[in-house]
């Protein structure tokens, strides 16, 4: 049976490759960061919880000292890229499409045919495992078609992962924070408090508080990912899912999108809202946010309705 463990080895191999290439490039900080992450992927299942915790602290220490820098591996020039683009045409999109097609078609095929009884994939893990297979197929297709130097995909991947830097593990770290919140009983505490504040049994008002809370925390923090474990632990899980029996998939997915409406409204999300104003040489640094207000607010209302209808009216 193919399990997540296989996927962790695959990802571990990618991270280890980037660690080696970074070292060769003289980037010690990057090499250490991707190396420790590779160790977590290869060995995590066999290490003690404490040893895994030490790896986490090591990653944070490396990131916290600002040791991870952007890199510039050798690649093609803009002129060469324009030539290739003209010559290869829209077929260039095809290898990228292999990934979602493999994962979605594979999942449907696996779940709605007798294939499922073969138990080829770990239960509920098939989509992400098929995503990994899709990536390998796309790489193979790209290599066979474009015939780049052997190390090109690794080096191009390193260029992209180094531009993301420590932010690459932020979502994983935030999910871990959510788990620590759960362990510390944060949800129970807030569930108790909020029960006293929100009128008993008003599901709709609770949905409103949840969606507005996601947007508001995102506006303050500039990051919907960070708001999510907070609001899920505070209202999403204890009240909407547990007390009122809502559909967890809708509450989670659309709750995150309510947060994205907040991202449209905040100068704290500088990369999306302030940097473009500078790039476009706008006089008002909040000009982009001003154009987004009229979309974000009605869309937030849509999200409230979608959660209420999808997670409660259609579910029960």
């Amino acid at each position, binding site marked *: 049976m193919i399990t997540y463990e296989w996927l962790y080895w695959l990802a571990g191999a990618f991270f280890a490759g980037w660690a080696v290439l970074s070292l060769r490039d003289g980037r010690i900080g990057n090499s250490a960061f991707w190396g420790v992450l590779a160790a977590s992927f290869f060995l995590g299942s066999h290490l003690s919880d404490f040893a*895994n915790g030490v790896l986490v602290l090591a990653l944070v220490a490396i990131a916290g000292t600002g040791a991870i820098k952007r890199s510039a591996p050798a*690649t093609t020039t803009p002129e060469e*890229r324009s030539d290739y683009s003209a010559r290869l*045409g*829209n077929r260039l999109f095809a290898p990228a499409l292999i990934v979602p097609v493999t994962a979605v078609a594979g999942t449907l095929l696996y779940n709605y045919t007798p294939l499922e009884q073969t138990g080829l994939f770990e239960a509920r893990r098939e989509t992400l495992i098929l995503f990994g297979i899709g990536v390998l197929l796309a790489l193979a297709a790209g290599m066979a078609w474009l015939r780049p130097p052997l190390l090109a995909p690794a080096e191009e991947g390193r260029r992209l992962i180094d531009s993301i830097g420590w932010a690459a593990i932020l979502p994983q770290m935030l999910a871990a924070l959510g788990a620590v919140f759960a362990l510390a009983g*944060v949800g129970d505490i807030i569930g108790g408090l909020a029960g006293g504040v929100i009128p008993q049994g008003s599901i709709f008002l609770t949905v409103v508080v949840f969606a507005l809370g996601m947007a508001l925390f995102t506006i303050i923090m500039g990051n919907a990912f960070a708001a999510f474990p907070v609001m899920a632990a505070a209202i999403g899980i204890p009240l909407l899912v547990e007390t009122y029996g809502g559909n967890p998939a809708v509450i989670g*997915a659309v709750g995150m999108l309510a947060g994205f409406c907040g991202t449209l409204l905040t100068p704290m999300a500088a990369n999306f809202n302030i940097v473009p104003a500078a790039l476009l040489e706008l006089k008002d640094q909040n000009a982009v946010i001003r154009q987004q207000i009229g979309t974000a607010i009605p869309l937030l209302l849509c999200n409230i309705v979608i959660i209420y209808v999808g997670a409660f009216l259609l579910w029960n």
Partner: protein
Amino acid sequence: MNYWPLMGIALVVIGFALRFNPLLVVVGAAVATGLLAGLDPAQVVEALGKAFNDNRYISVTWIILPVIGLLERYGLQQRARAVIEGVRGATMGKLLVIYLGFRQITAALGMKDIGGHPQAVRPLVAPMAEAAAEKSHGSLAEDEREQVKAMAAATDNVGLFFGEDIFFAIASILLIQGVFESAGYPLTPLQLSVWAIPTAICAFIIHGWRITALDRGLGQRRRSTRA
């Protein structure tokens, strides 16, 4: 009841608002929450290590980068620009609505780095929108020019945010999965990502309507000043 573990939530909010390194903020908040809930330091490190380890699948998504990088080496960004340039001659409203749809669809298929402000909006979408608006409405006043360019940037953001979550192998979807799984609610990525579709449709309708309203508004302003 011990309310002290709630300090962890406050620490996340304050730490992000004050622009500390987010990884430090998150781990600091986790450690504080654990200690305030009565765990000893070694237990906190263990809890953090276990939780991080259990959620490794979230970071697996980065294995797509060599595929995207390889295609970029052979002109993927340039190809995306050529597609956008293909709608030259359209009105500003039509151009930005098409770009909105293009950005949503490519992001939903996992190509969220097609487009973006430095790669597409500044060199291409904003100048094209400006040129299209001038073609329909004559020369633009300074504030109108700013509005059109800012709308081009806003369209990129809306298209990305409300397209990317339809792709299941993306950090936000897997983060949702991780948080719910830790709380005892196992979900699959596809179960979550299909629920990004209704919002994506609403975003297309609302933002598309606003783009065309801006284009119409520029025309109306001229007719009323001439009258």
